């Protein structure tokens, strides 16, 4: 089963962490992707630019409406994601606990609807 792990953290708190510690968190996240890859559980992962860079797009009656994002104003913001292949939800949650972001923020685990015909592979 495929899962999206959506990593949320408090951008302001994160920006106040010492640069060295932030670099260590990044190194740990990259190391995790390699461990997942070796275990056949890795699909994709990336950090995102700060929520202030988000743009919202809606189309109503054929007219595009473009506004500043993000969609949800929350204390913690979406900081990045991991796409993983796990046996079940339990395994996906176990992976989520290894994401450094789960230790300073929150990881939402969502199963993908696996459909055929998408141009993914």
């Amino acid at each position, binding site marked *: 089963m*495929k899962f999206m792990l959506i990593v949320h953290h408090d951008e302001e708190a994160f920006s106040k962490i010492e640069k060295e510690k932030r670099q260590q968190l990044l190194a740990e996240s990259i190391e995790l992707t390699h461990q997942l890859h070796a275990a056949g559980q890795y699909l994709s992962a990336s950090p995102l630019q700060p929520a202030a860079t988000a*743009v*919202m797009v809606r189309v*109503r009656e054929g007219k595009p409406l473009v506004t500043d994002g993000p969609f949800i104003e929350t204390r913690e913001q979406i900081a990045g994601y991991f796409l993983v292949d796990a046996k079940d939800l339990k395994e996906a949650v176990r992976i989520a606990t290894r994401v450094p972001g789960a*230790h300073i923020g929150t*990881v939402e*685990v969502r199963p993908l609807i696996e459909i055929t015909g998408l141009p993914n592979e």
Partner: protein
Amino acid sequence: MKYLCLVYVEEKILHAMPQSERVVLSNESMAYCDGLQKQGQLIAASPLHPVETATTVRVRDGKTSTTDGPFAETKEQLGGYLLIDVRDLNDAVRIASKFPAAQFGSIEVRPLKELGCA
């Protein structure tokens, strides 16, 4: 540049649609993704199961806590994503605006950090 397009739709609206309409929407979405990939602009895309299947995970002092449900309760819910590779934000917005769900939902377009997050 790479962008993550987060597609938010009101699940209630989707559930209220007749099955035939949902199939048309799904087919249109897949055909659109297919076209993007042929132009080398799509990296990945997928719908997600409804938010009630979400689990939220936090680890503090080595202790894991999990709660059922999404990170945030909202009127529209995260229903899927497109990961695209395009020239700039203008192209990303154009692509998002042509995705079928943009007509009744909201799409958040977020640039990826391609040079690390520290």
